[in-house]
């Protein structure tokens, strides 16, 4: 069981959340200009880092907002959470 700190609601158990994969992957500004390989890379390829990881979570059963969690993928330690507004 992870205790995930929603930036709005505070710490809640992970049952309330949906995982959204690696964070900080911007949508290409002009998808039509990409090759199929570049588009597939954007859609499917992720780093699967060991250790410090920035990832997206949605507080599905709570405030229903997406935000960014920093987690150590080895120890599952939660290192912090932020809204998208904070990181821009």
């Amino acid at each position, binding site marked *: 069981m992870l205790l995930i700190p929603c930036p709005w*609601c505070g710490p809640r*158990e992970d049952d*309330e959340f949906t995982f959204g994969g690696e964070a900080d992957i911007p949508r290409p500004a002009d998808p039509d200009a990409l090759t199929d390989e570049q588009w597939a890379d954007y859609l499917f390829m992720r780093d699967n880092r060991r250790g410090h990881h920035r990832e997206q979570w949605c507080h599905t*059963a709570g405030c229903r907002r997406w935000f960014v969690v920093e987690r150590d993928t080895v120890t599952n330690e939660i290192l912090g959470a932020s809204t998208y507004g904070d990181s821009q």
Partner: protein
Amino acid sequence: MSSPTPRRSPLGAIESVQHPPQEAQLFERPFLTQINLRLDPADSEALAAIQLVLGVQLPLTPNTTAAGQELLAAWLGPDEWLLLTEHHQPDALVTNLQAALTGHFASVVDTSAGQTVIRLSGPSALDVLARGCALDLHPSAFPPGACAQTLLARAQALLIAVDAAPTFDIIVRRSFAPYVAAWLQDSAHQFDLHFPTSDTA
């Protein structure tokens, strides 16, 4: 003209929840007006216009409610609220809110028929809820006026702390209401609650 279809609340078929004895600590509050409101909290003009209509300021602190004379506003998200009232008809309130928000980026949706309110009260209420809810709902952590959307027995629910009895309003989707009511009745059997026995509805 055909006569209007009589209204039926989500728990209307469950006699013990619908017509509880005086001492009951679990019952439905049917047919409350429930409006989902979304707007940008940075739009101070819209916030002021809404306050004029509702007579209460929308709560901007997460997981809190604001109570006016006739209406309760519950925080659902940084740009989303639930308005609960028995003093305004849904159509009239929606019309007034939409008029107040003309020209603003906002949404007003009548959800009155989509969800219902179950009230649970009494000293055992905390124990009844604790069997299916991970939140600390003790008044020291979840005082009157607090609210939280969470899972109750795996069903999505909005919990509102009404008073320190403690009394909770539990707002669930219409289709989940019979299940949640049955679960609450079952959970309550573990405790010394003044509580009507469950019907086979």
